[in-house]
């Protein structure tokens, strides 16, 4: 059987993908909800201990992350220009490869993301488009030559379909990251886990519409779980803050096993730990 390689994406000095077997070294993106800092997870706030965005960005970039992620978490489409201004102001301070992200609300994202993309002054990763928003997002990302994250709902066929549709609209197949979507640790993580493995195996088999590198936002889902947020658990569960950190780490490690090329993390401490593992 012929083994094929996953497509390679070059982003500044980073090489994403390109592997032809499962034991490779994933990249780590450290993401911050930068517009509304309040929405960052408790362990993340505990780490930065400041509400100064510039300072947070500085601290985040001091971590060993490969990519810095900024989430423009506005709650209403009338704040799109505020978000764009914020991105404009932060761009000169960013010295690592960049990923920008919308809010995971189709109505807002289809307006917000294309506008953010117009502000970008360098090739970046743009997260994410789905079946409802790719129509509005792809024209801008393809024009700007950006790498687009395509999220489909835990289904290999839908992932493939979205890749085809986006490529028909102009997105280069060499600039797509697949996000299969996934449940948090303990909350159906295994469905996304298995789809990631399946996508990866199809990629190794040479499927030209499924051989893109994978990105996973699993840690965000894991930090949203009750176990990582509530301190009403019995003593068997240990201390909340420790448990929350471990929920992030454990789910990150699981998607590393499933073949994620980029793993998005929230806690800067997790970056050190996960990077240390693959040194």
């Amino acid at each position, binding site marked *: 059987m012929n083994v094929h390689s996953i497509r390679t994406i070059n982003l500044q000095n980073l090489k994403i993908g390109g592997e032809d077997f*499962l*034991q490779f070294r994933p990249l780590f993106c450290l993401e911050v909800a930068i517009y509304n800092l309040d929405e960052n997870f408790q362990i993340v706030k505990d780490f930065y201990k400041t509400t100064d965005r510039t300072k947070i960005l500085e601290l985040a970039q001091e971590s060993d992350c490969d990519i810095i992620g900024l989430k423009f978490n506005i709650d209403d489409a009338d704040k799109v220009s505020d978000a764009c201004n914020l991105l404009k102001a932060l761009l000169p301070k960013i010295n690592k490869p960049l990923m920008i992200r919308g809010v995971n609300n189709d109505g807002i994202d289809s307006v917000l993301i294309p506008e953010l993309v117009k502000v970008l002054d360098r090739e970046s990763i743009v997260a994410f488009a789905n079946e409802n928003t790719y129509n509005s997002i792809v024209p801008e990302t393809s024009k700007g030559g950006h790498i687009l994250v395509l999220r489909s709902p835990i289904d290999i066929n839908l992932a493939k379909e979205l890749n085809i549709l986006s490529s028909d609209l102009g997105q280069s197949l060499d600039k797509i990251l697949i996000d299969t979507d996934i*449940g948090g*640790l*303990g*909350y*159906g*993580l*295994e*469905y996304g*886990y*298995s789809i990631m*493995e*399946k996508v990866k*195996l199809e990629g190794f088999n040479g499927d030209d519409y499924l051989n893109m590198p994978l990105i996973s936002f699993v840690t965000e889902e894991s930090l*949203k*779980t*009750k*176990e990582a*947020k*509530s301190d009403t658990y*019995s*003593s*068997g*569960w*240990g*201390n909340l803050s*420790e*448990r929350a950190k*471990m*929920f992030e*780490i*454990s*789910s*990150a*490690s*699981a998607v*590393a*096993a*499933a073949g994620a090329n980029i793993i998005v993390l929230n806690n800067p401490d997790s970056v050190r*730990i*996960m990077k*240390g*593992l*693959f040194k």
Partner: protein
Amino acid sequence: MELSGLQIFKYLPGAKKTENSNCKKCGCPTCMAFALKLAKHQVEISSCPFVPEDLKEFFEKNSKQPQNTVDINGLKVGGENVLYRHEKTFVNKTAIAVLIDTSQSGWKEKLQRVKNFEITRVSETMRVDLVVLKGIASKELTEGLNVISYDEFNSLPIEVIEDNDFIKTREKLIEIRTSAIKEKDEKYAKPVCVIMRGQNENLCARASFYICKYANMLLFDEFDEALISTLMTLRQNIFTDPQKPLQVEAKIYEFNNPDENSIIFMTTNFALTFYAVANELESLNVPSYLIVTPADGMSVLTAWSAEKFTAQMVARILKKWDFANKVKTRKIIIPGLLAHMKEELEEEIHNAGDDFEIVVGTVEAYAISDFVKNYVK
């Protein structure tokens, strides 16, 4: 590798149109029927006297279990058949074992914590699977635990790996499992235990990876509750049957101590739906009930189209649980995806003698908190 019915058929007299073609000695009407059954393991290969040697050899090799199962006082370790969980469910969960060394200070306290450790998630109660005891401890101290001595542990037919370097351990685990499954090489047939030493900060990352790929047992020499409960949560995910939808018990769930005037929601018992809704309801500052109907673990729309969520079923279950007499609230909020069922539901509920009104809720769980803000007003 498995052969298909057609591939098997090619070896048989029926396909070669030779003597003994469709002789029926195997009990099947034709060679083709035999081949199809054999592919599904419904007949024994030996029941055909004319099977050529090469096919026999292939079957002998193939029927060999790729990994042995080791039974430790009822705890089963190993016995895995596949590399990926989507191919076939993993068989025996990665056993979580703790080493207790009585020559170390604080061992009694550690043993006590291991003994006390018990967590319940998704109706599964989990404890430490095995204690490996170096030295002697009284029966009283180890009561209720599965204990073996250090010598017994070392004499188990298990491959033991010391986890000194993540990259090397990972490579070794993957190599062993792959050789066992793909080549059925007996050298690799033993289940694998990884010894996890100390409390290194990346212990959780390592152990999580090994649960996915491919440790059959993890032996920890330190005990940390948060770590073990996290790993058991991951283990629950990875070892779930991928063919079976995750479901929760169908019953009435309570959030924030509801009373007879609290708001009432309804959904199906698909675990992902349940958790999404339950998480929202729990984080509200409003007491509520959640009626979870039995739907074989199907999500709301799937259950509706498969007739696992019908108006009659809802009416019947409300009666069965005598819910109308337990609350004064007379409104039940249903998922937005089922808006079209409003009238039908009300009619059936009224026919059954209850007087609940149906309110159409949100399509997505995350919108529940906004919905409730307006609803309670």
